[in-house]
Every structure is written in structure tokens, then in C-alpha cells.
């Protein structure tokens, strides 16, 4: 088997003023990933081709793009998954405003991050006094594997297909952040009057999610965003807002503890 061949690439080039898919023929060697090919394009044919990347090992979440229409990390997409005569099409993320070539303006995500109230440390524990059991931190730890590549935010049709929903909807990554904090064994938000279960629905747009699982499908870290974060969060919101039994139970308990 020969180790190197000429591949056909189509790369979107342009900026806010417009742009199009441009064709390239470029060498591909054994073991390479899509990001290697983009780098080869930069070094040999298009020195000003804009692309974000960083660790090249699937750990930083910078090189998000859409490859043959699917949101993926360029550094984790091996060329061997494509046929040698297949044209590989690379575009920037299509849910966010474009900056240039493969680079998009992802500030939507940073704005959303700021809207999620932070971890509230318990008042009675000093640094070094925190005690948590592994089984209690397992759940939020899964969500903290997130590398913030924003592929889930990109693929989620709630904002991808409906720009007008962006103000109301935090997106899978940040709803998962709410779930993470709500499951943190020592988060003391409740003591400050903050009910993360309720605000997930009321302020961060959990109700927009129709659990079609694209976020989970594209997650390069394999986080079960829908099953382990969003649906449990929906169930927690139900506890607060739609469950008369729980509501009644809490009333009775409050009365009996008061009496």
C-alpha cells in the first residue's frame, strides 16, 4: 500500500462579506488527520488560511469545524476515514458568525458562561476541610471533562437553525454546567436562595431542548450530555415545577419540621 496520495479538498474561504468553497489538491500521508492537511495547505498553497488550533491532541477544543457537513475536531479526524477519491469539504462552524475562513466568532459561548451563577462554596468549611466521596463526584466529573470545543453548541438546532433563540437558550454545554453545579456535592447555592433546578428552566432555556441528542452525538469527549446532564436536569426541573406529589411532600415536611 502506498503511503501517500493526492487528496481533493474543498475549504470554505471568506469572511463576513462573503466567501465560497475553494478546491485544493493536496498531499496526504499515512496516519495524518484533517488538521495536518490544513497545515500543509497553509505552508504550501494558502499561507493566510485562517484556522484555530492549539494542542493537536483533542484536549483543548480549538480546531472545531464542520467536515463533510459534520461538526468535528479537525485534529481528531483521521484521513483514513475518508476514501482516497472522496472530496473532503471543510467549513467553519455554521451556528456562529464567521470571522475569516475556518475561524468563527464563538463569543456567544463566553457570554452564556457568564450567565451561569458560579459554584457557591459552603460557608462552614475552610480550604482543606472539603470531604467528598468518589461516588458523589463521579457525575459532575464527567461533565468537567468538557473541553469547550462548542461542537454541541454548534450542532444544537435550537440555535443553529433559529438565531432568534440565542438570547433565551444557554445551549447544551452551559445547561450541562448547571447540571454539574447542581450535582456538586458541596455546592451551597441553595443557602443563598438560588435554585439551580428552577433557574435551569426559567432563565437558561432548558425547555427549548427537545432531547434529540445531537450534542451527545458530536461530543469528542464522549460525554453523555443528553442522558446524564440534560434529561436529569429536566427531571429536576419537574420536581420543582410540575410535580404536585413532591410539592405536597415538601409542604408537609416543612410543616412537620416547623411543628
Amino acid at each position, binding site marked *: 500500500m502506498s503511503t501517500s496520495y493526492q487528496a481533493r479538498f474543498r475549504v470554505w474561504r471568506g469572511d463576513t462579506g462573503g466567501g465560497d468553497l475553494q478546491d485544493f489538491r493536496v498531499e496526504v500521508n499515512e496516519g495524518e488527520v484533517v488538521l495536518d492537511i490544513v497545515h500543509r495547505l497553509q505552508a504550501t498553497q494558502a499561507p493566510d488560511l485562517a484556522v484555530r488550533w492549539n494542542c493537536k491532541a483533542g484536549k483543548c477544543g480549538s480546531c472545531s469545524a464542520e467536515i463533510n457537513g459534520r461538526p468535528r475536531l479537525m485534529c481528531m479526524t483521521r484521513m483514513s476515514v475518508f476514501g482516497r477519491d472522496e472530496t473532503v469539504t471543510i467549513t467553519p462552524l455554521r451556528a456562529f458568525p464567521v470571522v475569516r475562513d475556518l475561524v468563527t466568532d464563538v463569543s*456567544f459561548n463566553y457570554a452564556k458562561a457568564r450567565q451561569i451563577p458560579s459554584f457557591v462554596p459552603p460557608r462552614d468549611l475552610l480550604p482543606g476541610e472539603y470531604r467528598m466521596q468518589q461516588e458523589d463526584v463521579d457525575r459532575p466529573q464527567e461533565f468537567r471533562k468538557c473541553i469547550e470545543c462548542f461542537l454541541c453548541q454548534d450542532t444544537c438546532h435550537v440555535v443553529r437553525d433559529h438565531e432568534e433563540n440565542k438570547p433565551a437558550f444557554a445551549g447544551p454545554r452551559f445547561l450541562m454546567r448547571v447540571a454539574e453545579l447542581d450535582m456538586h456535592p458541596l455546592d451551597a447555592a441553595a443557602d443563598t436562595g438560588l435554585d439551580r433546578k428552577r433557574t435551569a428552566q426559567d432563565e437558561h432555556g432548558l425547555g427549548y431542548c427537545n432531547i434529540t441528542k445531537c450534542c451527545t452525538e458530536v461530543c469528542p469527549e464522549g460525554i453523555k450530555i443528553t442522558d446524564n446532564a440534560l434529561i436529569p436536569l429536566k427531571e429536576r426541573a419537574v420536581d420543582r415545577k410540575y410535580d404536585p406529589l413532591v410539592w405536597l411532600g415538601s409542604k408537609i415536611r416543612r410543616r412537620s419540621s416547623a411543628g
Partner: protein
Amino acid sequence: MATGTEPQTNSDTSGDTHHTANRGGVRTGSRAAIAAPHLRTDRWWLAPAATAAGLLAFVVYSTWRAFANEYYYAAPYVSPFYSPCLAENCAPMRAGPNWEVLGGWWGLSPALIILVFPLGFRLTCYYYRKAYYRGFWASPPACAVAEPHKKYTGETRFPLILQNLHRYFFYAAILVAGILTYDTVLAFRDETYAWGHMGLGTLVFLVNIVLIWAYTLSCHSCRHIVGGKLKHFSKHPVRYRMWQFVGRLNARHMLLAWTSLVSVALADFYVYLVASGVFADPRFF
């Protein structure tokens, strides 16, 4: 973008001349100017099409059977579509699930009364929601494939906000599964109601009830109720183990949703075949 605070606003409201044909969604003005609604090259339509076909087949079959109001009892087997039978017009079943709570005024097929519950359970199920939102409503048809709708509000308002009632249907589904278990026990009789016998139908019922239970217990609401709602698993070791067990089932929720859907239809069809005389139930002992 240098600061991350001021997301670029959607520029096409200002009548951007570069994008006169703003069609919203991925073709919103400020996004990369790509005309195609999606660039997927794989057969992305296969999964939603197969889902839609599968669900449609079940709907057609179950509508026919639910309205049929015949051939649903062949001693000792009662079709799961008609159990429990809650009206006077039910076929009498010895020791079977005849509870005439609705009395004589009900003139339609008695299946319609009880089917509301398992149907509601499946309709609000987190897996089926995904399946029909994708398969029937194309919202979205597949990941990164543009959906055709102009507006989208998800499950924020009536009627879809009612999806939040899933857990009540889960409670009801537990009762129904209990009754179907009872029916399966009754299937260990022969056609003269003598105990200690088994036929092919008994086997069909057994497989069905195992799948029904597995599907019911693998429900996300169940996972929440048994332990998922807790903040500290370490303080509730028994519920933690239950949660882990349900979690393992839950990972196969889709598989169980389909297999139990097929098995319940098959169980009904088996009863239909026997009751209508097309086929005699082979007896093992």
C-alpha cells in the same frame, strides 16, 4: 471577539447587501455564506426514515387492533392491548383482568381506555421524543441538517410542555406492567384454565413481559426517582445501587423501546392469530 463579551449581532436585520437572500438558520447573514442547508455526504436520512417507518407501522397496526374490538382473548391469553379490560363490553376472562369500572355506557373498543396509559408513557418517553421529533417533525431531521421550521419553541409551551408529565405516565406504566405480569402468570394455564401448563404463547408472553419491564424500568424518570435526584449517593447506598442498575438499563433505553414495542405488538398478534382461529397455540405441556 477579543474580549468575548459582545457577541456579533445578527447583521442581516440591517439589510446587509452581501446577503440579500437571508433565509435564516445556518444561512443567517453573519454566518459563513454557504448556500447548501447542509453538507453531509453520508446517508443521514436513513435513520429518521427508518424510525418514521417503524413508528408508522406500529401506529397503523395498533390503531387497527385497538378499534377492532375482537379476537383479543384466546384462553388463557389476553392481548396486552386489552388488558386490563375496564368496560362491560369486554370478553369474559376467567380470573382475568376484567374490571368493569366504566360500566355499561362505554360502547367503543375497551382497548381505547387502557391504551391511553402505555401510549402516553411512550409518547412522553425521552427516547421516543427524540425519535419522532427527528423522524416525523424533522426538528432536526439529523444532526447539522437544517430543519424546515421557521419558528421553534421546543418544549417551553403548550402542548409540548406536557412532556414534563412523563413521570406520571411512568407511574401508570408500572401498574400496567404489573397487570401484564399477572396476565403472563395466567398464561401458565391451559385453555381449560388448569394450572401448570405452557404453550408457545406463554413463551411469547414471557419474553414480552421481560422486555416491557426492562423498558419501563430503564426510563429516565425512573432513574431520577430511584436515585438520580439525590445530591449525595454516599448517604444512600441502596438507592445508589438501584440508580446504577437503572443506569445500566437506561443506556439501552432505545434498544428496549424498540424491542418492547415489537414484542407487545407480536404478543397481540399472536393472540389475534389464535383467537381468530388462524393458528392453534402449540402446547409444550
